[in-house]
């Protein structure tokens, strides 16, 4: 029993490492791409790693209190945990992680874990920007949750399961079986929600580097910040993996995973480059209009298509 647990933990550590590194690299890749588009050179690929290391080895740190101290811990635990409950590579026992502890529903709710913890930590810093950022982030979250939830319900109806593994399994056997093609309405709704979820422009006001320097993490620095930076890469990649599993047929190997997730990510990047930032109330209204409508249609659609 114990050995089995350790074995799994070991396997998961490997996944964790790969996904984190991949996340950081993707981040650098996107930065570089945007820079190229804008006629700059951009950062080297090692830059994210250097950033993390640099903050990690800072010799001074201040603390505003115990919750402040625990905030980054919650945050990265949320990231790691979310990944832990998602099977990463289809058909691979090694990279199934702890997905048999819970289903899709667990993953969706566990995504809040880090956000909540982080919000508490940032709250204790006593910095108004943190609070403002959190208020905005939470508000926006309630809005993109709606199309996302509708899309999820749609595919749960479609596949008649909440198990991510089974959802992926159902999409095997060719691209035409991907949710993207079998239930493109739901995928569209989900991808619109994804824009909000990634926090890229036009939905990046909760971080808003201009008015409220980087939002909730304002007061965090040194080792705290390194944890947050790591998580940013890790959590971003985790969400990509989740979307890949749900809508894009999953992946049977790491290469497929990387190609697919990068492609998904590009959607957000392209939209982000093309559109200016929404105010919070605007983005809320946005999500409640077209995306929600599409989500509703997706359920009607799936009921017509997949239930007798």
């Amino acid at each position, binding site marked *: 029993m114990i050995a089995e*647990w350790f074995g799994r933990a070991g396997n998961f550590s490997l996944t964790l490492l790969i996904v984190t590194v991949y996340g950081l690299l993707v981040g650098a890749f996107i930065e570089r791409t945007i820079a190229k588009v804008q006629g700059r050179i951009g950062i080297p690929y090692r830059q994210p790693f250097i950033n993390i290391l640099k903050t*990690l080895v800072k010799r*001074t*740190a*201040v603390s*505003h*209190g*115990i*919750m402040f101290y*625990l905030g980054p*811990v*919650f945050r*990265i*635990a949320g990231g*790691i*945990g979310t990944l*832990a409950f998602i099977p990463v590579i289809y058909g691979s026992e090694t990279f199934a992680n*702890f997905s*048999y*502890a*819970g*289903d899709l*529903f*667990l993953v969706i*709710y*566990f995504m*809040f*874990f880090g956000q909540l913890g982080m*919000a*508490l930590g940032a*709250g204790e810093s*006593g*910095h*108004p920007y943190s*609070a*403002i950022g959190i*208020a905005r982030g*939470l*508000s926006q*979250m*309630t809005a993109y*949750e*709606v199309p996302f*939830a509708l899309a999820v*319900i749609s595919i*749960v*109806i479609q596949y*008649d399961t*909440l*198990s991510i593994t089974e959802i992926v399994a159902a999409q095997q056997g060719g691209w035409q079986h991907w949710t993207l093609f079998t239930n493109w309405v739901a995928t569209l709704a989900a991808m619109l929600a994804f824009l909000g979820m990634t926090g890229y422009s036009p939905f990046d006001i909760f971080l808003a580097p201009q008015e409220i320097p980087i939002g909730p993490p*304002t007061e965090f620095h040194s*080792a*705290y910040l390194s*944890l947050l930076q790591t998580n940013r890469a890790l959590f971003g990649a985790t969400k990509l993996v989740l979307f890949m599993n749900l809508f894009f047929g999953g992946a049977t190997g790491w290469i497929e995973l990387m190609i697919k997730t990068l492609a998904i990510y590009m959607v957000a990047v392209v939209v982000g480059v093309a559109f200016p930032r929404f105010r*919070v*109330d605007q983005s*809320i209204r946005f999500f409640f209009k077209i995306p929600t409508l599409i*989500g509703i249609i997706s*359920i009607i659609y799936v*009921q017509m298509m997949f239930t007798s």
Partner: protein
Amino acid sequence: MVEGFITQVLLQPLGIYVVALGAGFLVPLFDRAHRSSAILLFFLALAGMVAIAGINLLAILNGAAPIQIETAGIAPPFAINLRFGLYEGGFVLAVNSIALLGALHWLPSLRQHASALLLYLIMVMGINGMVMTRDLFNLFIFIEITSIATYALIGMERTGSVLAAGFKYIIATSVASAFFLLGTIFLYYLTGTLNIDGMVAQRELISGPIGFIATLFLLTSLLIELKPYPANGWGLDVYETAPGGIAALISVGVSAGVFFALLKTLPLLDNYLSSIAVVGGATFLLSNLIGLKQDNARRLLGYSSIGQMGLLTLALAATVQLGIEAQLPLVAGGLFINHLLAKAGLFWLADLVNRNSTRDWSVLAGRPGRLLLFGILLSALVGLPPFPGFWAKWVLVTELAAGGLYPWITVVLLGSLLEAAYLFRWFTQALQTRESDTPDTIRLESLLPVALAALLLFATGYGMAVQLESDTLIMFLPLLAGTALWLLDGLPGLLKSLLMLVVVAAGGAWLTLDLEGLNRIFGFILVGGGVLLSLATQYRSDVRKGFYPLLGILLLSLATLLRAHTSLEFFFSWELMTLSSYLLVTLGRGGAKPALTYLLFSLAAAYFILAGFALAYAASGSLELAALGDTGSSMGLVFSLLAAGFVIKTGGLGVHIWVPGTYGEADDDFTAVLSAVVSKAAIFGLLLVAAQLGIRSDIGLDPAYVLGWIGMLTATFGALMAVFQEDIKKLLAYSSMGQLGYIVTGIALMSHLGWVAALYLTVNHFLFKGILFLAVAGVVLRTSERLMYKMGGLIKNMPFTFVATMIAIIAMSGVPPLTGFGGKWLLFNAMMEKGWYWLAALAFFSSAVAFLYMYRLLHTVFLGQRKLEHAQLREAPAILLVPQFLLIGIIMVFSAYPKLLLEPLSSAISPWLAGNLVWDGLSLHTHLGYWNAPMIMGVVAGVWMIPLLFLLLMSLTLKIQKVGQFNIVFAAERPHRPEDTHFAYNFFAHYDRALGFLVKPRATAFWNSIVEWSHTLAASLRIFYNGNGQTYALFIVMYLVVLFLVNGGLQL
């Protein structure tokens, strides 16, 4: 001869006349000797009248035949005869007793004039005569005796207004008497007799135009004397202006006599039963509606009196129409005795308080004894348990339902609600201390008659309970315990708290431990949970007059609620719970006003429930709760009515407006009980009807589906409304409303999994909301604030409270690994299984919205910048923290091993809805998904520990500096006041901009407009009461004409 006198005269009902008249004639003589001897004679006579009535009634109750009294030694119909049977005895005893008490009350005025003494005595005798005589003309004489004595006593005060009112009264009753006489003589013309029984025996002779018109005159006269709307302004004016002593006697005594006259002549008036019912019903409904506009205390009592007589009339007509005269003693007798005692008590109290405007009754504020009396009388009048009116209304409504007279049920319940509205508004005004009030000067002994009336209400209420129920003792147990605790109310607060806990724990255990299934589970939540949370009452050591007895009653009534087998038992405990919780809310700082809203919505809920039960009884013929399902075709309606009642009580959307005020203003520790425990009673009720009715296939899914939507919309809007709250308790109030919405939806699913979800959510809500309200109690205790933005940074001072709050919030939010996730998961699975996709999507949204207020609560209060004045605050008292951490312990256990909880829940549901939870080891499987709670707990602990250890490790090498409050990155400036940087007020302003339109207070506006509309309607309905005696007289003649026309007079 003396012996003959005693046995043949004094002890016989006839003795009442002899004593009253003999004494009455002698009073002037005695008065010549000495005033006090006249007073002594007066009281001896009254006491004698009570005793004679009592002795004879007792004999009849013991099985003696009704006593027929002949006069002149000649048999009826040739001489006048009287009867003293069960009904007569009851009425006479009641009237004489109340007259005796009334005399005690009014003695200071009565003793001024010997003639007042004799008038009072003879007036009472006249009422006795009206009750006992069997001769129509003799009845007229007694009516006149009573009337003339009444006129004179009204005029005793001789102020301009009372004289004017008295004159209108005389004109009105004289015209009515004239009608009576006309009717009587023409009945004699037709039947050749004046004996009522003789007339009834020759009922067929009373026909044709003369028969019609004669009975019409008789009927009009009696109805007018009962003061029907709108021909009753003359009565109201007298109630308003006359001294309480006589007003009480008119309201309860004279009306009783006239009512009895109607009762005995009813066989002659059987063609008019519908008219009588309409007159009674309309009077009841409309006087109570118009009462809403009234703020003169005495006139208000007048409206209530008239309304009550209307109800009695309606009850009488309906009972006879339905042919269930056997129920008459319970219905009419119960309503009558209730009105008699309560109304007389209130008139006397009004006399003592001596304030015209109901607003000025605030002189009673802060006087628990007086308020208790006042409250008892009002509660009785409204028909709350355990008073006779409660039982009578129950029987009335169930019988009306059984007879299919549904419109009357609506009238009775609506009228009762309106009456409750103005009566308890008055109580609310009495509760509110005002600066300008001078203390009242009521001497304690002058309250004695009022107190006796209150006691008699309890006694008669118990008497009726014994008639109706077998398990009376258990039903009354909460009240007994409450009384015992109340007797000890002088003890120190902490001791009382302890005593209450012991009593409730012992009583509750005895009542609930042998229960099974669902009831057992709710036993743990309601009684166990109630006791656990009530431990926290120890954090206040002040006296808290009335608090502990009421809390004891509340918690024990929850226990008896669970034990109920019949709908009557259930409803009794339910109303007891309503009443006690209402009173507890009024004890809060600003609790009086919100408590009124709470009471009215609770009563509305109760009336829905009553109507539902009544309908069920009508359909199944049984009061057993288990027979609710045998209701055949009316099943859907029964279910809807009952569910509506329970949903109101959970604070469903649209009828939720009582929630924030009630939870906000109740005492902080009591709010925890209210939200975590008491609200679950409604869930229990809902589950009960769902189990008996909701799961039946013949109901169809529609009501359940509607219920599901109501629940989920409540959840959504509750969350949205909580987001915009600044008041911490109101935030939690809206949160409670929303969380209960999920539970309602879970029940509405009518599936095994849905109910497991509902029960799981119920347990969970109890756990986290108990913690939250107790934590808030601690915060409010320390900061004396309820507005969150006035707090901040309290984590430094109250770390334990913060931890408790945080854990509770996580448990509420649904974030794994704590219990909340299980609830959400179960509910989602159940909804998907049922195909309720839209509701599932809404659930996602509302639980996301819930994050907003949850975070806000934690941040605004505990995080951010601490206020300077809060720097020295201490942690909440240990006794507040103990229950919180006990509850946290339970949350942790259930989080890691939900099977411990789910298995009993599942097996409790199995008898109703088959289905099993599929377990694979510790993993729970549904059709769609799976949930391995222990493993999730392990993984989360693991992934949380690893970065923590890492950070700790790093900290070893780092020099972590604790910094001061204002040491933040703030554009190189340093804020000096926390207010500068504590981002708290209107935290979700942007959300308001985006979605605020959804939560504009529409429900409040709607209910306000209902209130306004009723007031406008009331104002337009009372234009008839223009104060002009001639208008009043005109209405009386019109009444006759209208009755003539509607009963087909033109077809003669």
